[in-house]
């Protein structure tokens, strides 16, 4: 409250600085949004349009990229295609214009589902474990509390990929290689330290008196945690969940190393499209666009909580 009032004052006192700030923010937004817009646009272009020079701003939109992303196709002679008769589906029609026929679904849908399952699964676990650990660390006398907290934090001090080889060997021995369970465990392990630290800050901010009041009013400790503490942690949990989700969703190196068929996620799959049938930019862009979508949706849905959460309690309610 106080903070925003102050900022307003500074802004009012100098119209020029307000303008400069506005211009910088707009410029920054453009710079970051441009590539995204370009990817989305490319996903609706036909392959020739996507590589034409000069690049086309105005073009005839087509779903060819998306069709190519979701299907396997093979090139056929004109006579063969004529013999097949008229196309039965809208996507057959698009494909035949390039003298091809659909031979089956591609593996993208499966990979995408893997990403969702692993990403959200590990985020859920990390947040649940993190919340409980953070509450424990914040409220109870835990032997060696400081050392434990430091140890948890220290797992983030090196890049996770530094332990790639041991994890690869361990997973092979345990049969966790290329399984969704293995990836969920891995991402949860990486995220839980971040979750504990972020969430402990939020729990520390909640006065103990709320729980004391609930305890006296007749709740058990666990009920007080669920009914009184959790609702007040919403913003913190939302912010933490987004951070965890973004990490798990974007993670590339471990996914490439530990998964191949079964549990492969979207990040290592999308570049593989490039290798499959020449440079099919619209298909790659379509994959990227779809890949970006869940994070955008989650962020938009949680944006109110996030705004409060990301300031890390700096702004008093």
């Amino acid at each position: 409250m106080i903070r925003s009032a102050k900022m307003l004052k500074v802004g009012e006192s100098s119209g020029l600085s307000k303008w400069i700030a506005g211009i910088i923010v707009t410029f920054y937004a453009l710079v970051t949004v441009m590539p995204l817009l370009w990817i989305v646009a490319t996903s609706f272009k036909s392959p020739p349009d996507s590589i034409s020079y000069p690049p086309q701003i105005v073009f005839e939109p087509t779903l060819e990229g998306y069709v190519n992303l979701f299907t396997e196709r093979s090139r056929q002679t004109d006579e063969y295609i004529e013999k097949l008769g008229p196309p039965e589906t809208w996507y057959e029609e698009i494909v035949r214009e390039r003298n091809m026929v659909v031979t089956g679904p591609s593996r993208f849908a499966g990979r995408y589902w893997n990403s969702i399952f692993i990403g959200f699964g590990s985020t859920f676990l990390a947040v649940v474990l993190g919340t409980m650990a953070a509450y424990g660390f914040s409220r109870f006398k835990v032997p060696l509390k400081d050392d434990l907290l430091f140890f948890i934090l220290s797992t983030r001090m090196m890049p996770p990929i530094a332990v790639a080889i041991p994890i690869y060997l361990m997973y092979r021995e345990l049969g966790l290689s290329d399984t969704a369970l293995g990836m969920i465990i891995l991402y949860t392990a990486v995220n839980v330290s971040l979750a504990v630290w972020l969430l402990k800050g939020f729990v520390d901010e909640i006065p103990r008196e709320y729980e004391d009041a609930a305890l006296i009013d007749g709740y058990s400790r666990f009920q007080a945690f669920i009914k009184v503490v959790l609702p007040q942690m919403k913003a913190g949990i939302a912010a933490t969940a987004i951070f965890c989700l973004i990490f798990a969703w974007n993670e590339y190196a471990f996914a490439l190393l530990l998964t191949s068929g079964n549990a492969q996620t979207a990040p290592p799959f999308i570049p593989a499209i490039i290798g499959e049938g020449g440079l099919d930019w619209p298909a790659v862009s379509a994959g990227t666009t779809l890949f970006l979508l869940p994070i955008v949706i989650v962020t938009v849905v949680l944006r109110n909580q996030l705004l409060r959460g990301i300031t890390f309690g700096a702004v008093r309610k």
Partner: protein
Amino acid sequence: MATIEIQNLCKTYGDFVAVRESSFTIQDGEFFVMLGPSGCGKTTTLRMIAGLEVPTAGHIHLGGEEITYSPGSQRNIAFVFQLFALYPHMSVQDNIGFPLKVQGVSRKERKNKVEEVARMLQIDHILKQGVGGLSSGDRQRVALGRALVRDAQAFLMDEPLGALDAEFRDLMCEELRLLHNRVGATTVYVTHDQVEAMSMADRICVMEKGEVLQIATPDEIYARPTSKFVGGFIGSPSMNFLPAQGGIDSGAKSLAVKGGEVAIPEMYQAITSDSAWIGARPEHITLSDQGALRGETVSVEYMGSRQLVVVDTECGRLRVRSDNHIPVKTGDNVGLDFDADALVVFDGHTEKAIDSALFGGTAHG
């Protein structure tokens, strides 16, 4: 409603003793105030009564029943917290009705009770609002409502007015006391503000460093503090302490101080240590030319019909509350007279009061 009996209650955190061997009984329907400086263990004692803290040793009885180790939820005690601890995600009526909801009281009965309590506290018009936008006074009332709604055996309040503005505090003080008169619930009220304590309490319990020093009615505690600390802590401006000669037999009626001799209530007890303190409240010293002690006026502060005169004497700086028709100004050399019957003598070593005619044989030094 019920009495609360505390026996030899102790709480230690590691080596640190937060509460030391406390014993006292809070009567049924009494407004009992625990008073002491910050960190003296008031909150810790209260939390042990509430069941939020487990005592290291000792016993607590509520209405004759031992509750020392039973969980807070089973004690039927209501607690009003300093920061009110209203649940921010609930409306006013949900906040007040919360304890009933936990107890499984039906929705209809809950509604009736909440409305009854709200009417009593005059907050029935804001029942539907969230607690976020309330003024601190209304928050205070909602917190009280949550305590009142449940027919608890006792009310515990930890500096419930601490978060209010000074001006509002006086008003709430009055309201709280009136409420208590009406409800008649056994109340334990914690504060570090002696004015608050004096104006509200039936009895005051003064604590220092985890120890109970004195339990008495406000006027008793004001007139007959049993220790130097209590004398100094209660009253504003505070009690003057004059260093005096010790080693006096019982029966003495005056004490030698630097620069004079001060008449005191007859001693019923000998002062065994070689030094003593004479405690004199500012209103028990008068400006008088033939006074026992002389000194130089350092400042004069007008306070309505009275004036506070600060005088430097050989016994240190003394505060005198005198009628303001006596003309005095800074720099004047004045004589001071003491109201002999009202003076308290403390042992120089133990700082406990010495039994005298003032105590009438009741002090145990």
